[in-house]
């Protein structure tokens, strides 16, 4: 079986300097962590994977997703879901509106699907809420729901837990990983937080492809 997500000699350079160099595949349900200090190319790697790289960068190699070469596709056709540092909920839409925006157009009974998803996430009855009135944990859960309702074939996480306070972080982290595993999604997590990397429980690489030792989780 081919890997769910494969980066094949995937390289990004800026002015002849390598910023990203990854040759790795991620299986369904597996979490690959990219780690490094700020400025190390983590965000560049993400932008390249979703196809929003600034024109100054050069990119080579291929990205395979579920057996399909998506390297040349525009962002919206790649079917890679992304969770940002900020939840980036659309402020002009209600919570339900945010989720319905993500649902593919072929889905019928959209209001029902949205309501059911909210119930599953413990946010039942939140359809008409203004996103600006939600708590941080609620916003993070709505953001993940929105990403998953778009039916992605892979999930990228861009430091999605860094803005959450410590108490909430573990809870949201396991919510996200559980949901991803339940759907059999390959996941790439970008973080500078070693705790995130440990919780992910998979391989840890720098954007240039070197393995990072993170040691065992403290007891």
């Amino acid at each position, binding site marked *: 079986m081919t890997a769910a997500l494969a980066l094949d000699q995937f390289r990004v350079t800026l002015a002849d300097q390598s910023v990203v160099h990854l040759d790795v595949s991620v299986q369904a349900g597996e979490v690959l962590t990219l780690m490094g200090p700020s400025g190390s190319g983590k965000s560049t790697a993400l932008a390249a994977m979703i196809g929003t790289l600034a024109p100054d960068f050069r990119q080579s190699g291929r990205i395979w997703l579920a057996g399909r070469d998506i390297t040349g596709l525009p962002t919206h056709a790649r079917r890679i879901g992304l969770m940002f540092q900020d939840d*980036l909920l*659309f402020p002009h839409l209600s919570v339900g509106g945010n989720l319905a*925006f993500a649902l593919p157009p072929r889905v019928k009974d959209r209001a029902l699907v949205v309501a059911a998803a909210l119930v599953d996430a413990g946010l039942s009855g939140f359809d008409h809420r*203004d996103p600006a*009135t939600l708590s941080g944990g609620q916003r993070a859960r709505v953001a993940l729901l929105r990403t998953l309702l778009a039916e992605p074939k892979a999930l990228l996480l861009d430091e999605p837990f860094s803005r959450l306070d410590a108490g909430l972080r573990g809870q949201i982290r396991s919510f996200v990983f559980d949901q991803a595993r339940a759907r059999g999604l390959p996941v790439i997590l970008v973080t500078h937080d070693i705790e995130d990397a440990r919780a992910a429980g998979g391989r840890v690489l720098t954007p240039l492809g070197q393995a990072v030792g993170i040691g065992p989780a403290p007891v």
Partner: protein
Amino acid sequence: MALPVLAGLLGTLIPALDGGFDRLAEWPGLRGAMGLSLVTGFASTGVSLALALLLTAALYGTPAFVRVQRLLAPVLSLPHAAAALGLAFLLAPSGWIARAISPWATGWTVPPDLLTLNDTGGVALILGLVVKEVPFLLLMILSALPQTDAARRMMLCRTLGYGRVRGFALTVLPALYPQLRLPVYAVLAYAMTSVETALILGPTLPPSLSAQVVLWMNAPDLQGRGLAAAGAVVQLVLVIGALLVWRAGEILCRIALPALAQSGRRGLWLDQPLAILARVMGGGLALAMAAALAGLALWSVAGPWQFPDALPDRLTLSTWSRALPDLRDSAVVTLAIAALSTLAALALVLGCLEAEHRFALHPGAGAMWLLYLPLVMPQVAFLPGVQMLALQAGLGGTVLAVALMHLVFVLPYVFLSLSAPFRAWDTRIAAAGATLGAAPARVFWRLRLPMLMAPVLTAAAVGMAVSIGQYLPTLMAGGGRVETVTTAAVALASGGNRRLIGAYGLLQIVLPALGFVLELALPALVWRNRRGMRA
């Protein structure tokens, strides 16, 4: 944008070659008119820029500055002609100020023989320009300030012991001015070439060059058109010369500024008097505008009103009821033209900005100059040529021709007003939408446009106001057949009927104000349940 301007310029130049320059050189008023153009241009631009900067430096971050911001939109939406007419009512020796203080304080039972309007030095004209240009420059400053990190720079200066004004001049101004440069050039060019303000408030012995050019265009002897064309070309050269002089002044300031900054003087003593000056002058301008508008309104409902009565004998709606059919017709035409030109401008500007975003384009300084060309180019220099083109295209005298003509002037303002908020929009929202499977078109229509509703409406209101205020372009493209409230008001101004002028002037103010009311009310209504959409 450049095409109509350059084609129009060419169309203007050709009649000038037919002996126009020789006759212009023989006109004894040439030196006086040129001098007047230069004096009013430099004086009104200098005073307006200084006052706008002073208001910002002395009041930025204070409650008074918030009040200034609130006053901007209504004053900006005021057409030049209406502002000038209102001021004329106020300042004339038989005007409201003199009536208010007569005869009890002055002993005047007939108006004093004082040259307060149309003075040969152009002081009234300069004042009329300043009241309109200060709000425009303030708006430009407000939109540029966020990109200069002004609040933190000023705070830093304060902690180093510098006064507000000196700190502003030394640290914020150098970052601010480059973004203000083109608007300032537009103000300078406009002040040198304004026609309607000059006709209403300016001297007449001789008038400023641009006003004289329009008079020549209308000269009955048909020789006037060559003369007008030659005058327009001279006006253009004059404007270019003045812009070069201004540029030289900028360079001098840039050289002088670092030396000032290194002297270490804190300029604390400046703050108090300059803050008072800013408040007095800003307040004075606001008060003058308010009184001018109230005067327009009052004259439109005035019955008999002899000097020196401060108020009319009685109020009557007869002016309004008599003029109602005409007022209604011209209001409808005005709004139709404004809507057409503004919608077209919005579509073009949004298209350009969206293309810039999608294809990661970076418009250079050249593109900005192109955009500003119609604002910097003297209208009298290219509009006659455009009129000729419109006639040849069979478009002369239609609402469509006027709307197209207006588009040339509406577009830059819509772009100026919309580009900053459009570019400032968080593009990660677009990325988020795309990773959710939304194509660029869906991102634009469902995310970017709704989220930018408030600035889009602001741009629309600005565009409508610009269109409503156009005088010469309407006259030229409309061939006299298309009457807007502004062309009607300026035509009436020559007749001196204060009641009717008041009615048209008021309409000139009310129509654009409607746009700004809508601009404030609509987002508040639509986003009443969206806390994240409130600025």
